[in-house]
């Protein structure tokens, strides 16, 4: 009689394990079916709604972000199982530094904890062979977080199966400004180099033409090369949770032709069904977009 609760618990554990396996199997079958159509190469997420989720569930302030992290791990698992090679997430914007100092600090602490956990053997990084990039103005972060981020980037540099880009202390306008600054520096270096070479040539016509040529040499590729996000192709789909339909200064340059989705679910509530719906929508318009790309 005394053994009964233990037996029931073991049985319950066994049933939930079985159900988990059934879920995993059905999910893989679903992914097989979806893979019959085109699969996006790069998916981007704006993880919005953690604070509203905490408020809605009556949790304490930092718990929304913790729940958001669990949802993120699940989404990454689904994306990499489906065969999506690049995933970008908007973890922390430069605008977010203007939040309450306590919230910013707790976010930094959570990020430090989770960045360090990426290096553990059981982490998702090792499970899927993820190469991790941290994109943003890392100089704005505190030393601990920055050092941890650089450590993870170095440790995963040899991975090549799939890529995770974590945008932290990031604003798209800031990314473009940095790219322009780099272009300015590169061009002035080029001028100095060519100026030294042309020193003996006193022909002013040649100099004027040279200046014009330099301007022509600044092409789209120069800006793009200097963008931090140049390590990945442009996103095919951008998903923003919580129903808000705006970009909030995220990947403005890169999402010019991306499919935009804004499911109403808050980020911790996001699930497989939202991802699948976004991909099916992408597949619907994919052939038309490919045709247009060929026209250009």
């Amino acid at each position, binding site marked *: 009689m005394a053994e009964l609760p233990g037996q029931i618990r073991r049985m319950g554990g066994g049933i939930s394990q079985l159900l988990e396996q059934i879920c995993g199997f059905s999910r893989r079958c*679903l992914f097989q079916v979806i893979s019959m159509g085109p699969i996006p190469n790069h998916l981007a997420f704006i993880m919005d709604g953690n604070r509203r989720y905490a408020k809605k569930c009556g949790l304490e302030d930092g718990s929304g972000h913790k729940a958001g992290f669990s949802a993120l791990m699940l989404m990454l698992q689904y994306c990499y199982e489906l065969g999506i090679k690049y995933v970008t997430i908007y973890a922390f914007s430069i605008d977010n530094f203007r939040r309450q100092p306590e919230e910013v600090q707790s976010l930094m602490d959570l990020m430090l904890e989770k960045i360090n956990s990426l290096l553990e053997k059981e982490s998702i990084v090792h499970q899927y062979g993820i190469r991790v990039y941290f994109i943003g103005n890392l100089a704005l972060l505190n030393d601990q977080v920055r050092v941890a981020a650089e450590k993870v980037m170095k440790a995963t540099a040899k991975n090549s199966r799939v890529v995770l880009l974590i945008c932290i202390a990031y604003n798209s*306008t800031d990314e473009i400004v940095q790219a322009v600054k780099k272009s*300015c520096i590169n061009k002035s270096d080029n001028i100095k180099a060519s100026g030294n070479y042309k020193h003996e040539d006193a022909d002013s016509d040649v100099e004027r033409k040279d200046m014009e040529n330099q301007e022509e040499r600044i092409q789209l590729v120069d800006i793009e090369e200097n963008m931090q996000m140049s390590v990945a192709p442009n996103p095919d789909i951008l998903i923003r949770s919580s129903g808000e339909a705006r*970009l909030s200064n995220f990947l403005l340059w890169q999402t010019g032709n991306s499919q935009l989705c804004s499911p109403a679910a808050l980020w911790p509530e996001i699930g497989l*069904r939202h991802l699948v719906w976004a991909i099916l929508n992408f597949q619907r318009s994919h052939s038309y977009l490919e045709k247009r790309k060929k026209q250009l």
Partner: protein
Amino acid sequence: MLSLLSSLLSLLFVFLISFFIIITSRCSFSLSLLNLLGFIKFTALKDDDDNYKRDEGTYVVREEELQRELMPKHVAVIMDGNRRWAKRAGLLTSQGHEAGAKRLIQFSELCFKLGIHTVSAFAFSTENWGRHKVEVKCLMSLIQHYLKSKIQYFQREETRVSVIGNLTKIPESLRRTIHEIEAATKSYKKKHLILAIDYSGRLDILRACKSIVKKSEKGLIQEEDVDEALIERELLTDCTEFSSPDLLIRTSGEQRISNFFLWQLAYTELFFSPVLWPDFDKDKLVEALASFQRRERRFGCQI
């Protein structure tokens, strides 16, 4: 619990789909996709119970419900759907574009009446040069006809008209008309209509960067002077006081920016309407504005 249920339903559904695929093995991909779409849409949207707040283009809002003080200062619009509208109505593509042009005049008139200062419209993108030559020629002559015939109208309405874009590939006659209308209306300050013709968001940013690099080469600015404000001043949208749109409307159900304003849309609220552009009437505009007024704009911080 919910994810467990949806996974079990997915499993059942997968067996049905496999059965269906075997039976219809010669059918096209889209047939099985329809089943998938139906089921996934059901599960993806059924927990969006507060969907009545979502903007689906399905309910009517009255103009009186809008608040004047919450009106956006700058509304941008991607006028998509003219060709599909013409096909649906059994008309020629050119007639679809003509209906679209008429709609733009009505749209901007309505916006200005509601207190919006700037309206910008994506009339012709750099990517549109890839369309059929006949269609491109027709679009160019349509734009020219409308601009030429509406000069007096815009003067009467005291609306400033600006055209932004590359403008080097467009016909000479259209370029002349553009200069004419810009000169005739440049003194008006209360209402501003911006037409983006041969415009690309990326090329706009590139142009601004080229200008900055050129100035830095001449020693007019230093590398540390380069910041967001400087780039904004160099963009083509610097012709208006409110260069960043508060609201972007795209019609016809497509959910993409398609290389329209990129930098300028950093904090813009996006509204996607399933309605085709020539059908985007006053009710739809009021609905878009009501959606905008309901939104909580946090700019990354407060909640």
